[in-house]
């Protein structure tokens, strides 16, 4: 196994070529009903252009970690840097996809996709063209004039994906982007994402519950354990790029799959 | 055993109605077996309405309001006149070029429509021979009336002398007043009023109330200062206001001046001159009431049945009263 699975250092110091670093990041939510430690300790660094998936049981702190990286939740302690600069607030350089689609109900699909643009500068015909292209990619071009409430759950999620890509961001943060999609659409979207990544080499963090998807898409996979959650595994995916869907048949694929499954399983259950 | 009755004033308690509190304070009601509650009113017309509706048993209301109310179908009876001139008139600043009624032509005049004198402005204008075509009448709230004059927003205001003059004096604003009664436009001021029903049912009660009020007024006429002192005790908010006492004194003085009349001196305080009121009814019907109002019969609307010895003063006493109000007579011109 050690031949196929290269374990990356989980806490390499922040270096200039690292797009994202987290050092001893901890997050405690203070709530009226008591404090919750969402992330106990997370340290990692992600090189520029790396596609990193995060796997972990429900409620282990994946979304929280991503929000901290995006600068949308302050870390209780520890430090996060993006492109070498400490994260204090949100950066527009990142494209973000939340776990909920979070669409504006009063905007059409097309306008929702253009939302990040419209909030920062006037919308140009170019932007519109790009939005339409993205909507074609997520198979919603025919729905571009509809309101979110007229869409199905999966369709909404695809709108959010298109929105995250509209600014062609250098960093992509995606929280379970395909969870509401059927197997086929999911594969299609995964392929589309891989294509984009292959051509533009974005740095990406990708939260998913599908181990296969994680392997197919990622350069590295981080596994988070149950609460108090830390990063229990940091694995480099050995397949060459671009990857074809056929790699699923590769025995190494299955080996990695079983390893990851076991590793998530090993995480102690919630008491 | 005492009987509870409710009495309404035409407006807030002030010097011109302070004798009602004197009557109460001196036990003039109590000794007649009455326990009186005195309420402030919301204008003479409204006061007539509330008495007519039975909300109050008795009222001290200006004749204009009573006649109008009766014309509109309210079953009212006036049992005694305690003020013989409503002191309707025109108020101007002392430095105003308006010296005579004629000077009002082409000017801007402030008027409070709900005030007692307002409807009779045309009557005065006609009697005084004023050409009203160039005059612009500005309707306003009674709270801003004197202010608008002081600020030159209007050139003159129509006013009830007993309420506006003390305000101007308290504000140390020199002013001049033109009484309309001089031009023959005159109405009685406050009268004791009740419902016809009450009168028919309980003559003794009506007698008692009228007597108590007249007695109160006589007391105040004889000793105005004591009247004011009692007033301050009975209505503490007067004392709280800065010029309260002065205002009450002036206002009472002006009111007492209107008591001086042939009716009161020759007959008794409270006496109503039936020929005069017939003229007043005509005046109200012509100017103060809408077209469809029914002319009330002065003989049933007014009665002198309750005027008695209580309101009789000796010539000496009248002389003293005249001396007391001399300065106010000058103010009203």
């Amino acid at each position, binding site marked *: 196994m050690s031949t196929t699975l290269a374990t990356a250092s989980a806490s390499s110091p922040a270096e200039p070529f690292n797009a994202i670093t987290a050092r001893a990041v901890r997050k405690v939510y203070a709530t009226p009903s008591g404090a919750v430690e969402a992330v106990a300790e997370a340290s990692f660094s992600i090189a520029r252009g790396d596609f990193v998936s995060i796997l972990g049981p429900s409620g282990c702190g994946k979304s929280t970690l991503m929000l901290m990286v995006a600068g*949308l939740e302050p870390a209780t302690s520890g430090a996060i840097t993006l492109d070498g600069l400490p994260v204090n607030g949100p950066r527009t350089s*990142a494209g973000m996809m939340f776990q909920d689609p979070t669409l*504006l109900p*009063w905007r059409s699909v097309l306008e929702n996709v253009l939302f*990040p643009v419209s909030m920062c500068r006037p919308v140009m015909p170019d932007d519109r063209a790009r939005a339409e292209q993205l909507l074609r990619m997520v198979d919603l071009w025919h729905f571009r004039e509809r309101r979110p409430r007229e869409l199905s759950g999966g369709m909404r999620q695809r709108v959010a994906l298109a929105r995250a890509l509209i600014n062609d961001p250098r960093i992509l943060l995606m929280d379970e982007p395909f969870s509401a999609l059927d197997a086929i659409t999911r594969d299609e979207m995964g392929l589309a994402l891989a294509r984009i990544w292959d051509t533009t080499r974005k740095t990406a963090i990708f939260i998913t519950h599908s181990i296969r998807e994680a392997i197919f898409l990622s350069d590295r996979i981080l596994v988070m354990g149950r609460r108090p959650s830390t990063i229990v595994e940091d694995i480099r995916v050995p397949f060459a790029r671009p990857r074809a869907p056929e790699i699923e048949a590769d025995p190494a694929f299955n080996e990695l799959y079983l390893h990851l499954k076991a590793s998530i399983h090993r995480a102690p259950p919630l008491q | 055993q005492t009987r509870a009755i409710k009495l309404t004033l035409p407006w807030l308690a002030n010097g011109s109605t302070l004798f009602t509190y004197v009557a109460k304070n001196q036990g003039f009601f109590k000794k007649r077996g009455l326990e009186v509650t005195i309420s402030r009113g919301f204008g003479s017309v409204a006061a007539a*309405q509330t008495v007519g509706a039975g909300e109050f048993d008795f009222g001290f209301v200006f004749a204009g309001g009573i006649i109008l109310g009766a014309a*509109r179908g309210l079953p009212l009876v006036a049992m005694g006149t305690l003020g013989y001139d409503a002191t309707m008139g025109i108020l101007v600043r002392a430095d105003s070029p308006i010296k005579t009624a004629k000077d009002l032509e082409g000017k801007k005049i402030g008027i409070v429509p709900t005030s007692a004198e307002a409807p009779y402005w045309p009557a005065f204008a006609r009697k005084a021979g004023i050409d009203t075509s160039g005059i612009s009448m*500005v309707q306003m709230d009674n709270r*801003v009336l004197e202010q608008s004059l002081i600020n030159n*927003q209007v050139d003159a205001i129509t006013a009830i002398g007993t309420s506006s003059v003390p305000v101007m004096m308290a504000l140390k604003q020199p002013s001049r007043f033109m009484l309309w009664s001089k031009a023959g436009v005159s109405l009685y001021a406050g009268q004791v009023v009740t419902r016809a029903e009450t009168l028919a049912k309980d003559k003794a009660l009506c007698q008692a109330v009228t007597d108590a009020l007249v007695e109160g007024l006589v007391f105040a006429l004889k000793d105005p200062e004591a009247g004011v002192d009692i007033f301050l005790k009975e209505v503490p908010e007067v004392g709280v206001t800065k010029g309260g006492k002065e205002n009450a004194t002036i206002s009472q003085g002006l009111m007492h001046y209107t008591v001086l009349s042939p009716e009161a001196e020759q007959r008794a305080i409270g006496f109503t001159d039936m020929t005069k009121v017939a003229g007043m009814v005509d005046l109200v019907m012509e100017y103060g009431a809408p077209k469809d109002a029914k002319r009330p019969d002065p003989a049933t609307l007014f009665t002198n049945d309750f005027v008695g010895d209580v309101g009789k003063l000796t010539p000496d006493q009248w002389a003293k009263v005249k001396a007391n109000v001399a300065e106010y007579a000058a103010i009203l011109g």
Partner: protein
Amino acid sequence: MPDLTTPSSPAAPPPPGLAARGLAGARARIRPFALPILTAALIIAAWEVVVRVRHIPEVLLPAPSAVAARLWETLPFLLQQAVPTTLETVAGFAISTVLGISLAVLVTASRFAREALYPNIVFFQLIPKIALAPLFIVWLGIGSPSRVTFSVFISFFPVVVATLTGLTSVDRDLLRLCRAVGARGWKVYTQVRFPAAVPHIFSGLKIAITFAMIGVIVGEFITAQAGLGYMILFAASQAEMALIFASIVLLCVIGLALYALVVVAEAFALKRYGA
């Protein structure tokens, strides 16, 4: 057509079968007008009966028939008086809308403005402006501006409170999205907070339009040379209750029409911005 009876209710019953559509459709279209008028008619009838049976004199409470007769006789004149009242109401309402929304934005946008201003706005609202009537005419004169100002003073506060509630109760997820895309300042207001606050804002505007009209009327009580408020006061000086009521009826009809306009605007806005 404004549907006055459904202020902002999204719960329409399922449409009837296609066959019955024509007739039922017509009935459904008439109903929202017929029903309130019917109810009003019942109340009015009861009132008429009470006045007649108990022989209440007109000066205490005029019968509806007397009011109607008076209204009919004086309608041309009253309509003339209604013009300045209506115009001033619209002006007061417009200013209140702009002022109220601006204040609400200011107060949500800046913590400093909120802490410094808000309690003073409430303080100001609590002042019984009618008590300061003398100051009004001193500072604003006896013309229209004085009445419009009065109207604004009495009607802007509901807009402030409602807009404020709307702007601050926006879904947090949407605000997080805004932060995520680097949106800030004005844009967040125009694109997210405002649309989300639309139902709240219109709730404030519906209250404001009624108070704007009341404000003008009270302003006319204080000083005016024309207008329905002036007419009411004039009629009161003659204890002409029927004319008072006739003026009030006309006033309420105009007010209802203005309210209906706000409801129509709300319907459009909700179509655009409703969830």
